[in-house]
């Protein structure tokens, strides 16, 4: 009986205008988005090669540059177009914040990327609800529900059959569209995927099917809750708007209101305070020289000796101040980035109430893509920073005498003799020749396949639970449903 009901639902949908709408819309949009993404990937690759070459050329004992490789899966999920793909590193400092001059930043920021995940989240889920909202209530209105239940089949079999039939007919366009996308990838030379890559695409399709099942389940739930198809449609679309748009948007609004991140101005003030501290620490007062040269009973040689000792102590102190400044700056920038991350994490936590957000986070973790991938880039950068700092510090000690020391003179003339001491404002190693092979090569470390699955497990389970929950609720409601 179950098979018959499934067959009936499949045939019913096959003759439905909505099914062909879903098929044509999804085929068209997935095709266009995959084609556009592959082209974009080629451009980003070229840009990456250019940046990597120049980053390597410009790396020295003062600073290094690291470049984030483009995401191979950007046709599935991008979300990184506004995130920095190039970072400057100095010993102790990772420049999380890029140039603050906005006149050299894209004016199309904050726009979503037109990828598979976007289409499945916003278009496909909408059409899934549009297909399932009248599964029960539509049958009731047309009178076929009574006929069906007059046969020897239980209500649970009817609802299960209807649900499976509908879900199959929503999955078919999804799978066909994804196959079209994969064909386009195969035909193109820009994306070379290994076996793990194809497994990941398979997992993405499975997760998308899971998400669509949840949304279809919501359609079914409203269908068993209301007495009229039009009311069920209104309710299911409202639920869709809430789950897909309102909850993620409201979560961001709430978190931004309650937990605002410090503005760039505050960050600049902190950095300025650190700079002022360095400036005061590297200043040299004439009083110290004065005390030595006016000290009674000292011969000229003794004065010169004491001044040389003072000079050495000043150098050591100033070098220490410069390093302290670098450490403080690094800490300020890291703390700022951590606050941004924390805010994003809170939004993520709150928006998990929405299956759409949960689905996106699961995809981000599995591929990895979007913010998850950028975080992995930052973690790799932090690891690289530690290695780079250690190596550079030992090299700097070796090449100390070749460094370009910039500073000022403080001098005092006493009884016709001029005494002067040098202060250090900055030490540059940019022009010191050294073997580049000694410096580490930056590699972006991404979590392996099993780790990704492990991290995404919570989101996958939440989606699975939501799917089961919506079906069970629909079943309970249908058992008490008035079919007259």
């Amino acid at each position, binding site marked *: 009986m179950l098979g018959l009901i499934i067959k009936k639902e499949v045939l019913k949908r096959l003759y439905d*205008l909505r099914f062909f*709408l879903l098929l044509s819309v999804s085929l068209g*949009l997935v095709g266009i988005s995959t084609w*556009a993404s592959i082209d974009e990937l080629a*451009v980003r690759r*070229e*840009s990456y090669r*250019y*940046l990597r070459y*120049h*980053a390597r050329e*410009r790396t020295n004992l003062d600073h290094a540059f690291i470049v984030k490789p483009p995401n191979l899966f950007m046709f599935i999920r991008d*979300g990184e177009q*506004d995130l920095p*793909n*190039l970072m400057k590193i100095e010993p102790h400092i990772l420049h999380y914040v890029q140039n*603050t*001059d*906005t*006149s*050299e*930043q894209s*004016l*199309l*920021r*904050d*726009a*979503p*990327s*037109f990828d598979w995940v976007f289409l499945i989240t916003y*278009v496909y889920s*909408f*059409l899934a609800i*549009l297909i399932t909202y*009248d599964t029960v209530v539509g049958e009731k209105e047309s009178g076929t529900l009574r006929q069906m239940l007059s046969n020897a089949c239980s209500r649970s079999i009817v609802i299960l059959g209807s649900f499976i039939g509908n879900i199959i007919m929503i999955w078919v366009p999804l799978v066909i569209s994804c196959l079209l996308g994969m064909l386009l990838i195969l035909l193109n030379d820009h994306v070379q995927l290994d076996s793990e890559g194809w497994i990941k695409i398979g997992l993405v399709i499975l997760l998308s099917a899971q998400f669509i099942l949840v949304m279809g389940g919501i359609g079914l739930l409203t269908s068993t809750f209301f007495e009229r198809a*039009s*009311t069920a*449609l*209104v*309710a299911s*679309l*409202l639920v869709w*708007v809430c789950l897909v*748009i*309102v909850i*993620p948007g*409201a979560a*961001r*609004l709430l978190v*931004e*209101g309650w937990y*605002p991140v410090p*503005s*760039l*101005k505050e960050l600049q003030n902190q950095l300025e305070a650190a700079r002022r501290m360095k400036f005061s620490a590297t200043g040299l007062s004439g009083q110290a020289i004065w005390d030595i040269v006016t000290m009674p009973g000292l011969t000229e040689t003794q004065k010169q000796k004491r001044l040389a000792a003072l000079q050495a102590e000043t150098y050591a102190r100033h070098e220490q101040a410069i390093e302290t400044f670098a450490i403080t700056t690094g800490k300020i920038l890291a703390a700022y980035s951590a606050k*941004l991350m924390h*805010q994003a994490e809170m*939004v993520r936590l709150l928006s998990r109430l929405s299956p759409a957000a949960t689905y996106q986070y699961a995809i981000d973790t599995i591929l990895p893509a*979007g*913010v998850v991938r950028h975080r992995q880039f930052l973690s790799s950068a932090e690891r690289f920073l530690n290695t780079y700092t250690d190596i550079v510090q030992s090299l700097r000690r070796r090449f100390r005498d070749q460094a370009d020391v910039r500073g000022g003179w403080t001098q005092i003339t006493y009884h016709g003799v001029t005494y002067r001491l040098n202060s250090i404002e900055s030490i540059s190693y940019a022009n010191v020749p050294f073997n580049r092979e000694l410096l580490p090569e930056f590699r972006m470390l991404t979590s392996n396949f099993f780790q990704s699955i492990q991290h995404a497990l919570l989101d996958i389970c939440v989606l699975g639970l939501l799917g089961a929950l919506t079906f069970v609720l629909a079943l309970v409601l249908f058992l008490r449903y008035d079919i007259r």
Partner: protein
Amino acid sequence: MIEFRLLGAVLLVFLLFGLSSINGKQVYRRELNNLNEQRLIHQAKLRRARVYRQVILQMLRQPTPLSILVSGVGGRYGNIAQLGGKFMVDFPDDPRTQKILTLTPTNLFLSKLLDLDFSQLVLLFFSLLVIFLTHDVICGEREQGLLKLCLSYSVSRHQLLLGEYSGVLISLMLPLVFMMFLWLMILHIPPVVSLSASEVIRLVIIWGLTLFFLSGLIFLGLWISAQARSSATSLAVLLVIWVGLVIVYPNSIPTLARRLAPTYGILDKAFFQSWTPRRSEDTWRRLSTQALVAERLRMLAPSTAYIRAARVMAQTDIGTHIRFVNQARLLNARLMSWQEKKLRRYPGRDVRFEPIPLDISGLPAAEYQPESIAQSLHRIFPDIVLLVIFNLSCWWGALRALNRCPVTE
């Protein structure tokens, strides 16, 4: 009137709108305070200037209270222009002679799909509401046999159409009026944010644009309803149009603009090139061209045209930002010629300290000239034309379909 089943949706819209307005007001106040603080700091720096290298101009773009209603891009792309003329703004760390800065805190790690402001809520919820209210107006009545009854009276078909249209429009006006009252109430909760006369006019225009956009959607709903055989088909077609107009097209505009006006890699490549005014000019030209292409694309669909027009009137659109940066660039050129004139008169005072005060007479005023209402209206003229065409064509389509449609099943 709005049916009871839609009351929940309207209440949800009110709740979201209230939340977004309160948040918008906080952002507005914070931005205003930051800019005022920035102005004081700059004035103090200018007073301390002893050489011409230190005479830096600062032009600020104040947020408008209407940004609480329609947030748009706001100050996200920069609302402070620091101009050094022929000298560096941040000597000696940065070679730039002009900078556009923002104090608006933005979190790169947060995706920004939609700001749930007034215009977005209208686009998302009220357009859906229109679909729910209009999809079965003609075909639903035909299915129930009411259309035949209606037309048996001395009511012409176009009168019937106008009657149905007015009914839906009035139903939508009520929540819109309530939302405006709610917004004004939020503005009047201390600290009070007051509106100037021109802002009130802009507010009225935004409200009118909203009604005009919804009016077009109502005609579209009536057209499809008259054309379709059943209310289910009408609803399905309208919802597919809705997905295209509200979700797919607006979100594909950035992708389209990137392809039509590519700026491939120029920002990445600029990182390793030394900054020059010429390179900055070229970069800005290409970036602003890309943004303007996106703006042109927004004029092609009624949904995006409405959002664009509302942002232009609230002065939170990308065009307002481009205007600000262009004014800053012109001001920088004026500052440069002023510096040259002064340095001809006081040679060497670009770096040489002298005890006598600096002659800063004739220094160009760093005041941002916001767009007048007439200029804004001129800019949204294509959007208004599109909305007029949308209204007229849908009205014509609805009337034609109604004239041709059978009154019985």
